[in-house]
């Protein structure tokens, strides 16, 4: 159990990249990229977790109680926003590709080479 959450993050990371490498559709590629990024959320939050700790919010619990690490959560929040923005930009590009070329398949874009 003690390393399983970290291994989960590794799994998501590698699986996500596999999706990007093998993708035949830009929408699929973008979704796989967000999957890859979600591995970083899992890794960060798993690292910051403390057994028996509460959320780092002291509205209802006394400040002396044991809480999980708040820093990784702040980092993950930033990370989530980053993931949305990259996905939005890539989707906008994909839409334009579809309009110009009528294809969503990355393998069929071969203008730049050599």
């Amino acid at each position: 159990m003690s390393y399983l959450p970290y291994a989960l993050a590794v799994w998501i990371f590698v699986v996500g990249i596999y999706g990007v490498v093998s993708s035949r559709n830009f929408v699929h590629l973008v979704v796989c990229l967000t999957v890859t990024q979600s591995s970083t959320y899992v890794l960060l939050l798993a690292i910051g977790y403390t057994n028996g700790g509460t959320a780092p919010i002291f509205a209802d619990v006394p400040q002396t109680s044991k809480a999980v690490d708040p820093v990784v959560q702040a980092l993950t929040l930033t990370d989530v926003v980053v993931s949305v923005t990259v996905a939005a930009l890539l989707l906008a590009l994909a839409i334009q590709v579809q309009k110009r070329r009528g294809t969503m398949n990355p393998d069929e874009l071969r203008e730049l080479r050599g």
Partner: protein
Amino acid sequence: MTRRGRLALFAVSAAGLSALLLWAVAGLPDFGHFQGRYGATLNKVAVSERHATNVVTAIVFDYRGIDTLGEEFILFTSVIGVALLLRETRDETGRIHDAVRSDALRLVGIAFAAVLFTIGLYVVAHGPITPGGGFQGGVVLAGAFTLVYLAGDYRAYRGLTPQPALDFVEGAGAGGYAVIGIVSMLLGSAYLHNFGPFGTPGTLASAGTISMLNLATALEVTAAFVLLFTEFLEDLQLTREQSA
């Protein structure tokens, strides 16, 4: 490279990468036994120093407020970027029709939007106290506007969200965040220094500039997501019109 060659190269590399990563995480502290000084210290001092009962919000808007400045502008930049990338379609003019024509459905949609709007405001306002804050609340608020669009009254939607106003709110929200930092400097302290005023922990607006930065973020995020949705949805509407 052929597809097969690419997958073979990836398979070998991914095996190596997985092995490396597993080797790396084996060096982490056991799950549930992390004892980082940084987080522990902030958990101890944030409430008394910053009068925000949500330590994560205190970190996001104060201890590491500069990260969030960057984050706001990443969102801001990507909205501008999407506007740039999808711009051409606005010349390919076409009339945008309402998606839904049933009045009953419209009414339900708009009522639901009103509920979402209230929830969004609540989430924004309670950021320093409970989970949530400018980002999450802002997305919910943007969702409420989008619901008006999806519920079908395009003119009502555009009346609610005219482009110059949206751009103004987006710029004011993001710029406001950066300007609040400058105000700290004009008051003689460091950039983004929290200059108060502090209230009782656990009440709204208790945490000084955290509350202001939270509000600026909410404005920016709401406008940003409404703009994003508008760009994409109008683009798709037009595409559909043309192909029909």
